[in-house]
């Protein structure tokens, strides 16, 4: 080797060494986002492959790279089982260099993964889970509860239904942390608005297909409103069987957690007139329509709020990584909480110190078949609930991490 080549070689070596000592520090040379969701089970339509697609769209739209390093999206199926979820998360963090976990779908899996993420200092972006306590007594420093929670659903739907005269309630509740939390939040709202809770029936979930006996108990209670504190296939079956058992003329169903995928599978004839609260509707304005149509082309179905939430959360995360110059969890999460969210998903969004993303929510009514003019034209917006009213305040949440 002669002089110029040696100089060139030395310069090349220095150039290679330089990034390692620069301010940009992306661990393992890649920003890896893991979408951990229910791919094949009861919640797979409202999250599942749609959530993975949303994350991939977010990575693509961001340019496929951040701080010069590639963005990689990986995914896994936790089958709604807490042990599979926590083991997958652990393996992802320890062996596969995953930096952040998104979606999680159900409260039982989220509850199992959040402590693992805290131990390993990785961020969790919850889009599907609902339990309010995840930013309350169960809050962790690295958790963002992004899309919606039980308090939002209870206050949106519950308050409006009571205001319209539905002042006695009976709950049909999924017997696990999500259902019980939703029942509790809604009961509080009903009682605060002057209503009464006449009783509740807790059904095993998943695995219950026949709700006839719970509907019978609800009928016997004489309550004006039957609140369904369950989700996915459970809610769909409850609604269908309520119609079959002649419940609906005398009593009304309140769908506390209903997704557009549920309405699509029930059909408007069965679901019409139902009130529900959502964080996102594809037909809200031009921005939501534009994004949703892209999603529809790739997925074949319109996005649920979980899907839109995953896209927005991943984008917000990537923007924070770019802004702070590293994917170190402490720096990124501080930046995420300091930056307001203003995109097609969240109008006036702000992630609080407890990790709860407070944004506007929408109370909607399911249209009748006559009112629906084109495919997926399912919701009539009744009112927009501003962020401050839609979510509990930081003080009310009582997250132990937030200093008074």
């Amino acid at each position, binding site marked *: 080797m002669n002089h110029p080549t040696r100089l060139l070689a030395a310069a090349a070596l220095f150039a290679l060494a330089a990034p390692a000592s620069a301010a940009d520090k992306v661990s393992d040379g890649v920003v890896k986002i893991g979408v951990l969701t229910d791919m*094949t*089970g*009861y*919640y*797979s*339509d*409202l999250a*599942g492959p749609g959530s993975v697609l949303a994350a991939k769209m977010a990575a693509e739209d961001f340019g496929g790279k951040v701080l010069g390093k590639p963005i990689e999206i990986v995914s896994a199926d936790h089958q709604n089982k807490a042990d599979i979820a926590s083991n997958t998360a652990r393996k992802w963090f320890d062996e596969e260099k995953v930096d952040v976990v998104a979606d999680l779908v159900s409260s039982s899996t989220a509850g199992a993964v959040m402590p693992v993420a805290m131990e390993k200092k990785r961020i969790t972006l919850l889009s599907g889970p609902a339990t309010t306590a995840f930013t309350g007594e169960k809050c962790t420093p690295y958790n963002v509860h992004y899309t919606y929670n039980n308090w939002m659903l209870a206050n949106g739907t519950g308050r409006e239904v009571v205001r319209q005269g539905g002042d006695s309630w009976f709950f049909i509740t999924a*017997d696990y942390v999500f259902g019980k939390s939703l029942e509790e939040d809604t009961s509080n709202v009903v009682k605060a608005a002057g209503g009464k809770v006449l009783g509740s*029936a*807790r*059904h*095993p979930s*998943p*695995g*219950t*297909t*026949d709700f*006839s*006996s*719970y509907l*019978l*108990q609800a*009928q*016997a209670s004489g309550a004006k409103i039957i609140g369904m504190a369950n989700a*996915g*296939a459970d809610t*769909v*079956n409850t609604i*269908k*069987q309520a119609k*079959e*058992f*002649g419940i609906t003329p005398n009593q009304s169903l309140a769908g506390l957690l209903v997704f557009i*995928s*549920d309405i*699509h*599978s*029930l*059909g408007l004839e*069965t679901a019409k007139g139902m009130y529900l609260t959502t964080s996102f509707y594809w037909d809200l304005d031009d921005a939501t329509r534009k994004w949703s149509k892209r999603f529809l082309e790739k997925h074949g*179905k319109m996005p649920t709020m979980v899907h839109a939430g995953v896209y927005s959360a991943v984008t917000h995360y990537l923007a924070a990584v770019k802004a702070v110059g590293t994917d170190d969890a402490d720096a990124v999460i501080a930046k995420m909480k300091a930056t307001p969210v203003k995109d097609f998903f969240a109008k006036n969004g702000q992630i609080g110190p407890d990790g709860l993303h407070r944004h506007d929510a929408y109370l909607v009514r399911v249209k009748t078949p006559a009112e629906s003019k084109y495919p997926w034209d399912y919701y009539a917006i009744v009112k927009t609930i501003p962020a401050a009213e839609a979510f509990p305040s930081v003080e009310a949440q009582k997250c132990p991490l937030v200093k008074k």
Partner: protein
Amino acid sequence: MIQALSGQLLLGLINGSFYALLSLGLAIIFGLLNVVNFAHGALYMMGAFAAWMGLEFLGIGYWWALLLAPLAVGLVGVLVERLLLRRLYGLDHLYGLLLTFGLTLIAEGLFHHFYGNSGQSYPVPGALQGGFRLPFMYLPIYRAWVVGVSLLVCLASWFVIEKTKLGAYLRAGTENPRLLQAFGVNVPVLRTVTYGFGVALAAFAGVMAAPIYQVQPLMGSSLVIVVFAVVVIGGMGSIAGSIVTGIGLGLVEGLTKFVYPEASAVIVFMVMALVLLVRPAGLFGRER
């Protein structure tokens, strides 16, 4: 209180007759073929989907579907038996269980791939809509229809197997197939027909279920475990046992939903554990 209880018991009876219909097919297949047909839940699901597809793509209504869907799915069953199950006769029960379990996963995965999991809507047929206003509850006509038809089909099947010549051949084929074959009876064909019949029964139950439950790929998987428990409690080979136990367990489950709903998914297995402790062959079974 009595009102509420009667309502729950009637619902329990309805569910019980449904369990009886489902477990009948399973009991027939195990009793006569010695195959643990884990695919029973998936076949039930395929029956429901066949009915839905018939309506959606071919305009075939419920009444025709009751006949055609079991035939179509029964044909699938016949193919499965001829090509796959046939090779496992005489081996340990475990192989049959593993094969049918694998088939279940394939079937559920395929349907999930094409149709997702939220389910498809299937309407209650016009003639069966509405209900009776009983003093203690509103009984949908369709549910009464389900009880009636399930009991009818169960009784008819029991009659065919226990009281007719064909049934006698089927039972003889289990006891001593070689001797039966020596008498000139075509035992392999008999076996195929038996499996096809059991499968058709599962598909028939699926068509009956389509208007009540959402038609979705996992609809069989939650039921099949309960149905297995029913067959085990009734006695693995006994047709009458599975019918009686199906109805009985439906009633027990109905009672549990009234008293302590959180346990309603578990109660069947608790009963199974108790029964097996006292009578290992099941209530009506014979020691093999």
